């Protein structure tokens, strides 16, 4: 099967999310989640989904407790199941879409290029800054600044944030220069992978929209 166009996937994901939000009984949330898990298994993403579940399950569990205490058990079940299902929808979208196609898709949907690009470039930037933050923490601890435990870290926050901010600004400057030198501002940019809407894309979008209309309206 040829890969689907990211646009059709994004639009369908939004419709499906709409359906999950609109439905308010536990049985349809279970059904929705079951179908989504079926798709996950079909795409052989089971292992990745399980690691998603570690974080998401924690969030769903806390939601469950909060809603149970403030409202009732039935609402708590629906809310936590819905959170899992919504998480799975967007997990499917991001897992099946190459990062560079993401900014590409946003541009095709009308987002200005610089905005869409910076959004996807920041994902690389976050990793670099995380590595820098770890280096800074080590460097300051090696000087005797006790950045151990939340309280002490908070007391010595400037030692961590100061260098991090300075480096983030410096990095942003250098990055801007490097991007300029690789033609960031060039008119007439063409994408390596030009997305095309195929029949399968139209079928997917129509199905999602149809389902949305039947269920919600």
């Amino acid at each position: 099967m040829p890969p689907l166009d990211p646009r059709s996937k994004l639009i369908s994901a939004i419709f499906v999310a709409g359906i999950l939000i609109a439905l308010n009984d536990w049985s349809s949330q279970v059904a929705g989640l079951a179908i989504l898990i079926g798709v996950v298994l079909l795409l052989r993403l089971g292992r990745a989904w399980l690691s998603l579940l570690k974080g998401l399950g924690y969030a769903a569990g806390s939601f469950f407790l909060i809603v149970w205490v403030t409202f009732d058990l039935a609402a708590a079940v629906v809310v936590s199941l819905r959170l899992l299902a919504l998480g799975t929808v967007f997990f499917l979208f991001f897992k099946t879409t190459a990062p560079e196609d993401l900014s590409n898709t946003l541009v095709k949907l009308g987002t200005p290029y610089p905005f869409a690009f910076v959004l996807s470039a920041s994902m690389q930037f976050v990793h670099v800054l995380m590595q820098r933050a770890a280096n800074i923490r080590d460097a300051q601890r090696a000087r005797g600044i006790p950045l151990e435990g939340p309280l002490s870290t908070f007391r010595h926050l400037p030692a961590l944030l100061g260098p991090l901010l300075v480096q983030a600004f410096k990095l942003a400057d250098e990055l801007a220069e490097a991007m300029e030198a690789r033609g960031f501002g060039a008119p007439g940019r063409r994408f390596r992978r030009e997305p095309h809407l195929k029949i399968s894309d139209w079928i997917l979008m129509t199905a999602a929209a149809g389902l949305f209309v039947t269920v919600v309206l």
Partner: protein
Amino acid sequence: MVLQFEHVSFRYSGISEWGLRDIDLIVQPGEMVLVAGASGSGKSTLCRAATGLIPHFHRGLWEGRVCVDGLDTKDHPVHELFGHVGLTFQNPDAQIFNQTVEAEIAYGLESLGLASAEIERRLSWVSDVAELGPLLNRPPYSLSGGEKQRVILGAILALKPRVVLLDEPFTHLDPGGAERLRTLLHSVRSEGTALIVAEHRLHEAVADADRLIVLNEGKVVADGPPRNVLAEDLFPFGLNLPPLVRFFREQDWKERPLTLDEATAVLKDKFHRGELGRLISSDRLAFKNMGGSQSSANSSEKDSTPMIEVKDLEFGYDGETVLQGVNVTLNRGECVALVGRNGSGKTTLVKHFNRLLKPKRGLIKILGQEAGTKTVSELSRHVGFAWQNPNDQLFQANVRDEVLTGPRVLHAHDRDWCDRLIERFGLEPLLDRSPFQLSEGQKKRVAFATALAVKPELVVLDEPTAGQDEPFRRELAVLMKELRAEGQTVVVVTHDLEFAAQHANRWVVLAEGRVVADGPPNAVMADARVLAASGLRPTQSFQLREALERLGKEFRLDAAP
């Protein structure tokens, strides 16, 4: 010609000194030009001026004219020039901005507006040339320094520019990575692309260069074939001369060999003409600046307990073993260089010295006491670190507070010692200035002072010479000698084997998380098995010494009745 500078001068706005002064330069297709000069001499500014980033991206006062591939950079914005001239910047992390290697290479091609079939063609060509095939789908942050560098160069080569400039490309490479880069540059050049390499470590590239240009305070002070330029008086310009050249200059010989083969041939010739007798019979003298500093020359070494004992250390992240069965003992007054490939576990090992990392298994003793029960801050009184990037620690409002931060939090303020340090690093005039406003060289000095401020018995220097010029190296060597004389132990984590061979009395070689050799530098370099396992190359000085020794044996055989 593909690149021409005509009377080019430039001053960054807000800065009083000129970055470039009246530069005239013509570069031909396929030419390889090596640009040398001390820190702040204008190497990076020259690179930016060649690519149009000056005057379009960096504003300032601009005079003269730069033409690239027939285009006047003043009349053409950077996005019209980047297909003709490419530049790799110093910091690898600050020039990768896509999420896969493949996308990174394709980025510039997309900017050029090429059709996707052509983009695919260039992608596969460049992944061949720069050996990027296995990396294409990897996210860039997961790559090593050397791999990042190849990706960046690949992204530029894919654009098929006529001129490629590289700003300090060898700085973060291990010996194997440097070799690989040289090979790549060789094949790029053979396709007619002109190369301009700005570099402190001249010996890495000088043998391949057609031309050597020396910059000083923004001016070209020497320009010509490397041999001719290296024959001039270069001392005032702060260059880190190739060891072979330095040796020949010290002997007052007029030859300027750039490779070991050349040097050996010259030596043989001199030997047969009887000009070497003096040198060989008094070889101690001749080798003064070439071999390792042989002993720790310190009396306290014998009487005291070891500075650090590491026994059977094992460490790993996420189920991957990084260190295994490491046994090392460091004595007081020693200078030990920790060498090996990128990723061999050097930094991981030193981070155990103050428990920034905790061992999975094994024992660490500091000054005879087990470290296991102590916190990082307790240990930081005994173990000081000067990291490669001084920006990782500067945060105070002024230099004085920065230097005194450690002593204050540890309640270990020795006023006399700190005053001495401040004087030692020439920081008096900077004390009230913000550390962020200093030059990178000055920041490095402040970072050294902060590492030493609590008078630790052990100092770890992480890549102290990376990106530094000769005056800094000389000063660092003096500092290390002073520290050792006071009985302090110095550990240098480095790829700079020339520096390590000259100033460390002992090398500990790591390969894949294990210690594969531990001994005097010359003994390590003489062991072919160790070199193969660790990816190290013997230094030029060492090889020259071996060549001389071989000649010496012949000489003594000849002289015997």
